[in-house]
């Protein structure tokens, strides 16, 4: 049987990726996903690990430098034999490079001298540093909205916009793959986006709870901790 159908049973044993974003409860935990992924061949499991190692934020230390992240991506790219996954990988790293450049500029940093980030725009971005979207409106149409959200100091909105953009990229690449390894890898990367999405929701809920509880406490400022009125 061709590789086109090599993971039919595995893909059919997973809930639809769209359900991840609409169900109130997660339809698939990471533990259960990992159990299903045992069906992958050792070679494919290795490629998936490489992809996740570079594309999943959980795999990065908070103190990692830009040069280290770029090195990691450069080392990983030749180890990915599937052309769709390579293109997807490039797209995602270019997205990250462009967002990193936006953030640097927002902090008031000058244009980097050396090539910046990873992908096709490493020289283009420093050369167009003063332009609102580095002159990348056409190839990266999502960049305009990202810049807008960054300038409005809306980190949660920016995070969601980037997750949404990444999700749309994955859907576009996944449309041509149904039961092969690429489909499995794209599913796992979508699950990672869902996971970050769920965490950002939890963080938003925690912030909202904090604000509401402070408002409530302000309204009843005369209640002391022992629960007795003065």
């Amino acid at each position, binding site marked *: *049987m061709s590789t*086109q*159908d090599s993971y*039919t*049973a*595995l*893909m*059919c*044993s*997973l*809930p*639809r990726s769209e*359900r991840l974003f609409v169900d109130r409860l997660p339809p698939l935990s990471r533990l259960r996903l990992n159990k299903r992924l045992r069906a992958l061949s050792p070679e494919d499991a290795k490629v998936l690990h490489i992809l996740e190692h570079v594309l999943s934020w959980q795999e990065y230390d908070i103190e990692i430098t830009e040069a280290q992240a770029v090195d990691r991506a450069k080392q990983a790219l030749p180890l990915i034999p599937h052309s769709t996954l390579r293109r997807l990988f490039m797209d995602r790293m270019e997205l990250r490079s462009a967002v990193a450049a936006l953030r640097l500029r927002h902090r008031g940093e000058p244009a980097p001298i050396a090539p910046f980030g990873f992908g096709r725009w490493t020289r283009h971005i420093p050369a167009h540093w003063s332009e609102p979207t580095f002159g990348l409106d056409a190839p990266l149409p999502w960049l305009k909205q990202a810049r807008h959200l960054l300038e409005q100091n809306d980190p949660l909105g920016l995070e969601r916009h980037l997750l949404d953009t990444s999700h749309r990229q994955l859907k576009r690449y996944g449309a041509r793959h*149904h*039961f092969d390894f690429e489909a499995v890898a794209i599913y796992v990367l979508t699950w990672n986006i869902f996971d970050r999405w769920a965490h950002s929701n939890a963080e938003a809920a925690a912030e909202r709870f904090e604000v509401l509880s402070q408002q409530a406490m302000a309204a009843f400022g005369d209640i002391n901790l022992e629960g007795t009125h003065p």
Partner: protein
Amino acid sequence: MNELVLALGWLGIYAPMALGTVASAIGCSIAGQASIGAMTEVDSGYGRFVGISAFPSTFVIYGIVIMFTLNREVTPENAGGLFGIGILAGIALLYCGISQGRACASAINAAKEKPEIFGLALAPAAIIEGFGVFAFVFALVISAGIS
């Protein structure tokens, strides 16, 4: 030369049967794997999934019927006709069987989440079956012209 022509004639007689078997085996395997995967995800409706995964088994039957229709004494005069019809009908059945297996796998994958689209999801598989029937029927019709 005559021996080669006669061998091609025999090849043409058995090809629909052999390629039909391969088609059904691969098609049922693809759809069967999909049904096994879906059964680990849902709590009911297992029988429907298994039923769909048997859809591509019809191609081996078409192949057997074409083989019996073509089966006759092979001569240098009719060997070319037997070869042409048998091989091309077999290839058509092979592609239809594999494609139907994939269509069934997609139908199972979709129907496990939305049981209400179960019938509609089978439409592509039914259309592919129709193409297989065309190849089958016209192989029978045209084989009547071979002496």
